């Protein structure tokens, strides 16, 4: 049966269902239970925004509150994965990744390769990404390009509750390390989600809207901004195809290229900083592999090359807006767009 739930509930449900299905699935992180060991305080928090709330009551000690040391517990999760468990470690804000780079980039991502295929590391590291939550520069970044840079990591960033549940279940069942990026401003967004378990395969983008005039590619929160832009553009007769990548590693190149070959125009929207991000990556790939199909220069809409501002008025300007996406589409459609290099 299907019913409307939020992305936060969908993630909770995915964890619950997988813990029921597979006894090797464990969950660890800072305050994911909250108050463990203190009488009457068990399960008080369920994580900093309550995503794991209620799981302790169902699965007990398979949920572990850790010390405030990301280096330690991410390392422990990676080691447990290599030894046969399927840990899901909550890194709270993925911005904290910096203190456990070695555990993730140099150990988890490399074990399969370094040990000649004899070791697998089925660990999921999930946490919050993205701006707009008034959480300032150290808790608001979209660091996805750091993760996609590393071979051996899979990188997921859902845009809605349905995808979040199916992609998290797939992440837990996957035998390689997965970085699961949850945009905190999507936690409350509801959609129809089946109550049953289901897995969405990696590397299959979701085409949210058909159009023949321009292709807009995005992921996470900005997918919704792209859809808003597409709706506004349709009123002027421009039909945009909107592609939600869902997974960034692996990435669904075929769907992107097939769409651009039909539309001839590409706008890539990425909430990450503008240098060496998903937008530049996709623009380069399309430039190299579908250049002949392009009728205009590829446009990129990204956050600026600055820290995420704390001033609300500036933070609102920081994240790519529907207006900026629509303007980028119009640049690809203008006669000058065919030759313009910069916006």
């Amino acid at each position, binding site marked *: *049966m299907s019913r409307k739930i939020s992305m936060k509930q969908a993630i909770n449900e995915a964890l619950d269902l997988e813990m029921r299905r597979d006894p090797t699935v464990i969950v660890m992180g800072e305050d994911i239970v909250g108050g463990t060991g203190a009488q009457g305080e068990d399960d008080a928090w369920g994580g900093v925004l309550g995503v794991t709330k209620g799981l302790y009551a169902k699965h007990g000690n398979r949920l572990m509150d850790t010390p405030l040391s990301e280096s330690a517990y991410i390392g422990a999760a990676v080691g447990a994965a290599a030894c046969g468990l399927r840990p899901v470690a909550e890194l709270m804000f993925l911005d904290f990744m910096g203190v456990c780079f070695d555990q993730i980039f140099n150990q988890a991502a490399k074990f399969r390769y370094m040990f000649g295929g004899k070791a697998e590391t089925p660990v999921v590291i999930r946490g919050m990404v993205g701006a707009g939550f008034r959480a300032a520069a150290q808790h608001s970044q979209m660091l996805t390009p750091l993760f996609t840079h590393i071979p051996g990591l899979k990188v997921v960033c859902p845009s809605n509750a349905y995808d979040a549940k199916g992609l998290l279940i797939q992440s837990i069942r996957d035998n390689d390390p997965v970085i699961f990026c949850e945009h905190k401003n999507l936690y409350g967004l509801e959609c129809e989600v089946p109550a*049953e378990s289901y897995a969405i395969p990696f590397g299959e983008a979701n085409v949210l809207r058909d159009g023949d005039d321009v292709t807009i590619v995005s992921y996470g929160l900005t997918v919704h901004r792209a859809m808003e832009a597409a709706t506004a553009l349709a009123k002027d007769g421009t039909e945009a195809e909107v592609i939600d990548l869902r997974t960034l590693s692996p990435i669904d190149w075929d769907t992107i290229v097939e769409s651009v070959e039909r539309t001839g125009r590409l706008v890539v929207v990425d909430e990450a900083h503008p240098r060496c991000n998903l937008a530049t990556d996709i623009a380069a790939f399309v430039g190299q592999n579908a250049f002949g199909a392009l009728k205009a220069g590829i446009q990129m809409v990204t956050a600026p090359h600055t820290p995420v501002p704390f001033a609300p008025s500036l933070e609102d300007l920081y994240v790519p807006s529907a207006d900026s996406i629509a303007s980028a589409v119009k640049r690809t459609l203008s006669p000058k767009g065919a030759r313009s290099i910069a916006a």
Partner: protein
Amino acid sequence: MLNERIKPIVMPKWGLSMSEGKVTGWLKRPGSTISIGDELLEVETDKITNVVEAGETGVLRRVLGEPGTVYPVKALIAVLAEPDVPDDDIDAFINAYAVPVTEGDGEADAGPQYHTAETPAGTIRYAKRGETGPTILLVHGFGGDLDNWLFTIDALAEKATVYALDLPGHGQSTKQIADASLSGLSKAVLGFLDTVGVERAHFVGHSMGGAVSMRTALDAPGRVASLSLIASAGLGEQIDHGYIQGFIGATSRRDLKPVLETLFADRGLVSRQMVDDLLKYKRLDGVDEALRALSASLFAEGRQASVLASGIADARTPTLVVWGEEDRVIPADHAQALANTAQVAVIPGAGHMVQMEAAGKVNALLKDHIAKAD
């Protein structure tokens, strides 16, 4: 009353979830003389595009539905009337027309659209429409669900009590199939009828659901008042194994869409929503195993394992056979297997999903057959 000579044409309601539809184009011009069954216009919903057929006669006096515009269900989109009805009366009728509020529209719409029943075979989801007349059971095919009857269920429910179920392994019913044979599915269907308190029903089966219905008629003849077999399995060995394997194997929209296009004569009927809904179904835990078990049991090595035509011919159950001439999954000449004992209709311009593609014609055949058999 003059108003009775003015006949409104409204946005139809196809299936349980439709609330609005888009007029994509008119097939008749204002001033045309219309007969019952004439194709008037095309309407697109998020599930499918289909033709609206005339249910009454008259001259198409006004066309109000603008192509490309979305209208709520029951909105006035055209007016039929005889030539002698004055224009002023038609304008007055249009001005006075109010779209009925859907929620308050009779008791049938007030209840939940889907129900579940706890049966011996597990949880079964079903829909029930209509309160009067004979009882009809709609049984979908391999990989389908009760929404395959979205153009059928309300039309039949005008004069009947209609149940449509999701078979085990399908839709939102249990994904566990204890016995993946035709007998096993037939027992699951009978268990469902027991649970909802139906002793005897007119069985309407599509594709694999037709074979399940035939199996039931042979094993429990007292419970099957008549058979309506639509593009049915079980009437010959041949079946497009590529379709079955493609349907099971496809995990992405790109892979699944061409597979689904083989179901229709008009490939354009496969909408984004149809592909997305099926992908969501196929991703559920247990579905892949269920479909593979059914395929191995019923269609192993690309042939249908059970051909029931001779048994049905002997059984004397009143039977209607309907096929789409352009069926690419099960060949339309299988309809002839029952030519001597059943009413057979092969409909041109339609494929395997003939009950969707030629809904008006199929519904008329079903109503007529069931009325005679009851």
